[in-house]
C-alpha cells in the first residue's frame, strides 16, 4: 500500500507540474471563474424592464386618455406616441423601435358606455415568445387596474400580504452565484480530466505509463487528484467573490457544503474519466466533454430556467444532469441553511450517479489497458 501511495503521489506531482508548466493555464483557470461570476451576477436578469409601447389613441377622449395615463403610470412601459394603425406598427416592429403597441379604437368611449365589453387592441412583437408572454401579462394587469379604477371590477374584499423568505429583495445574484459555482466546477473537473488522459494517448506516453509498475487505478487516481485540488480552489474563489462582492449569505454549514461539493466534483471527474476512455484525440475528448457539460448545465439543470416549466421528456433528461442536484444542494446550504436531512434526495442521486460512472469508467479503462 505504501508503494501505491508513492506511485500515486508521483503521478499526481507530474500532472500538477503539467498544469503549472505554463502560467497561462493557471491564469485562465482562476481568472475565468471570476469574470464569469461577475458577468453572470450583473448581466443575468430575466426580468424585462422598459418595453417600448407604441400608442395609437384613435379615440382621444377623456376615457381613452386616462387609459393611456394608466399605461404611462406603470413603470414597465415607455410610451411612444404614434398616429397610424397596424401598418405603422409593422415598421416600428421591423426596425425594433417598439416591441408592443396599444391601439384604442375611435369608438372606444361610446362603446364603453353601451356595450358589456369594450375591445382594446394590443399588438406584441412575439419573436421572443417568453418576452411576449410577459408583455401580454403586464398589459392585462394595467387594463385590470384601469377597470378597477373606474369601478368596473369588484374591489378585493381582503388584503394579500406577500412575505418573501431567504431573498427578500429578490436579487438575481443570490440565485446565480451558486449557479456559476455549479457550472465552473463541472466543467473544470470533466474537461480537464477527459483531456488529461487522452493527451497521454495522443502523444503516445500512455504506453510508457503502462509498462511502468503503476496499476490502472493508480494512474486514474494520480491523474485526478490535482484536478480535485484545482476544482476546490476555484470553488473557494467563487464562493469568496460571491460572498464579498455580491453579499450572498452563507446560512448553512460549511462542512456540509465541503462534503457535498466533493461528491459533486467526484461525479464530474467520473464523467470526464468515462469520456477519456472512449476518446482517441484531445479534440474529441474536449468536444464530447463540452457537449456533455456546458449547454446541459446552463439550460437543463435549473441554473436559469425552472425545470418544472419544461416539457415532460426534458424534465426526465434533466435528471441525468449532475448540476441539477448540486444546485439544490448549494443553493439550499448557502441561501436557506438547509441541513443534510433536507437535502438527502439530491445527495443520494449524486452518489448513485458517481458510483455508476466511476464503475463503468474504471472497468473500461482497465479493459483497455490489459
Amino acid at each position, binding site marked *: 500500500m505504501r508503494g501505491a501511495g508513492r506511485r500515486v503521489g508521483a503521478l499526481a506531482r507530474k500532472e500538477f507540474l503539467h498544469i503549472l508548466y505554463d502560467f497561462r493555464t493557471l491564469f485562465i483557470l482562476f481568472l475565468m471563474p471570476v469574470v464569469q461570476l461577475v458577468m453572470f451576477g450583473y448581466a443575468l436578469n*430575466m426580468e424585462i424592464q422598459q418595453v417600448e409601447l407604441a400608442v395609437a389613441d384613435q379615440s382621444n377622449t377623456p376615457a381613452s386618455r386616462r387609459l393611456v395615463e394608466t399605461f404611462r403610470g406603470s413603470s414597465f412601459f415607455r410610451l411612444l406616441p404614434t398616429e397610424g394603425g397596424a401598418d405603422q406598427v409593422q415598421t416600428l416592429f421591423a426596425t425594433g423601435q417598439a416591441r408592443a403597441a396599444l391601439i384604442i379604437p375611435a369608438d372606444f368611449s361610446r362603446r364603453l358606455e353601451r356595450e358589456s365589453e369594450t375591445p*382594446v387592441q394590443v399588438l406584441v412583437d412575439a419573436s421572443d415568445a417568453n418576452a411576449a408572454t410577459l408583455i401580454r401579462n403586464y398589459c392585462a394587469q394595467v387594463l385590470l387596474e384601469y377597470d378597477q379604477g373606474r369601478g*368596473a371590477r*369588484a374591489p378585493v374584499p381582503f388584503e394579500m400580504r406577500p*412575505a418573501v423568505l431567504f431573498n427578500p429583495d429578490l436579487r438575481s445574484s443570490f440565485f446565480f452565484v451558486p449557479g456559476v459555482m455549479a457550472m465552473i466546477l463541472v466543467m473544470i473537473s470533466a474537461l480537464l480530466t477527459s483531456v488529461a488522459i487522452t493527451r497521454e494517448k495522443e502523444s503516445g506516453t500512455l504506453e510508457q505509463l503502462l509498462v511502468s509498475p503503476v496499476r490502472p487505478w493508480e494512474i486514474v487516481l494520480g491523474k485526478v487528484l490535482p484536478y480535485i485540488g484545482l476544482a476546490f480552489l476555484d470553488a473557494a474563489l467563487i464562493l469568496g467573490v460571491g460572498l464579498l462582492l455580491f453579499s450572498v449569505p452563507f446560512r448553512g454549514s460549511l462542512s456540509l457544503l465541503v462534503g457535498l461539493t466533493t461528491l459533486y466534483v467526484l461525479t464530474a471527474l467520473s464523467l470526464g474519466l468515462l469520456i477519456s476512455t472512449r476518446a482517441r484525440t484531445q479534440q474529441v475528448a474536449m468536444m464530447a466533454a463540452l457537449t456533455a457539460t456546458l449547454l446541459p448545465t446552463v439550460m*437543463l439543470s435549473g441554473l436559469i430556467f425552472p425545470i418544472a416549466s419544461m416539457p415532460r421528456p426534458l424534465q426526465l433528461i434533466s435528471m441525468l444532469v449532475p448540476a441539477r442536484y448540486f444546485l439544490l444542494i448549494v443553493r439550499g446550504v448557502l441561501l436557506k441553511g438547509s441541513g443534510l436531512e433536507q437535502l438527502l434526495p439530491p445527495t443520494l442521486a449524486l452518489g448513485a450517479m458517481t458510483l455508476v460512472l466511476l464503475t463503468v469508467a474504471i472497468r473500461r479503462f482497465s479493459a483497455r489497458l490489459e
Partner: protein
Amino acid sequence: MLPILSMIRKEFRQVFRNRQMLFLIFFVPLVQLVILGNAITTEVKHLKLLVVDLDQSRESAALARAFAAAAGFDVVGHTQDQGRIKEGMKAWRVQLALVIPPRFGRDLGGGRQPQVQLVVDGVDGNSAGVALGYARGVVAGFAQTWAGERGLGPARVHPTRMEEQMWYNPELSSRQYMVPGIVVVLLTLLPMMLSSMSLVREGEIGTLEQLMVTPLTKYQLLLGKLIPFLILSCAELALVTAAAVRFFDIPMQGSYLLLAGLALVYLFTTLGLGIFISTLARSQQQAMFIAWFFMVFMVLMGGFFIPIENMPPLLQKLTYLNPMRYFMAITRDLFQKGASLDLLLGEAVPMAVFGALIFSFSVIRFRKSVG
C-alpha cells in the same frame, strides 16, 4: 496553388478518419437542436403551493380551491402548522405558501378586510415575482366571484377586453426563437474550437517542424488549415438549417442565400478568433480553455437567452463589442421576420468590420515557427 490543395486534402483526411469527431460535428448538434430548442421557457408553471388554512371555514376553503384551480399552481399539501412552510422550502418541496388567518370567513362576511399572507421562496427571484403576479390574478378572480354571489357586482360600468395579436409567432413557441440562436452558437463554437485546436495540435505533437521544412508559406499553411473548416462549417450550417426547417417546423421567412452570405462573413470572425486563440495557447488544453472563455462571454452577452434589453446600460454598451450579437440578431430576423438586406445593414456592417479586423489581426500575429 498545389501545396495548398494537398494541405487541404491532409486536413480533410484527418477529420474524416476520425469517426468520433464526425459524430460530434454532425450528429450531436441535431440532438442539441431538439433538446435545447424546447428547454428555454421563462414561463413559470407548476409552482408548489402549500395551503395553511388556519380558519377551516367555507370561505377559506373556497379561496384555497381558487388557488388550486388556477394555472401555474400545484397544491402539494394542506396543513395547519406554519412551521412546515420553512421546513418544506429548505427541502425544495414547497415554493410558496398561502396562509389564511383564523376568523378569515367571519371577517370577510363582516367586511373587515382580513389579511391573507403569501409566503414565497425568494431564492429564484424571477419565479417568485411571477408567482406573486399569478396570486394577484387569482385573488382578483376570487373577489369577482365573491362579489357576484352576493349581488355586489359592478352593475353600471363595463370593463374593457384585451384583444391581443402576437406577431411573427402567434403560437408563442420559443423554439422559433431559440433554434436560430442555436444555429449561431454552433457556427461559433465549431469553427473556433476546431481551428484553434488543429493549429495548436501540430505544435504540441511535434508535426509543426515537419510543416516548417515544407515550402509552404505561412499564408498557404493558414489557408490549408482554414478552408477545410470553412467548408465543414458551411456543411454544418446547411445541415442544421435544413433539419430546423424540415423536421422541427421552424419557419424560415427570409432568403437562404442571404443567410449563407452573411454566415460566410461571420465565419471570418470565428475562424479569426480560432487563429487568435492558437497564437495564445501552447497546448490543446489551453486552446480549449481560452475558446471556452470566449464562448461563454459571447453567448452570455449575445442575446442568446438573456435579452440584451434587460441588462444594465453599461453592459448593454459592452455587447456591441461582441460579434455574435450581430449575427444572432441577423439570423433571428431572417428566420422570423424575413428581413431584407437593407433592414439588416445596421448589423451586417459592424459584423463585417469586426470580421475583417479580427481576421487580419490574427493572421498577422500568427507565426509559422516553434516557440
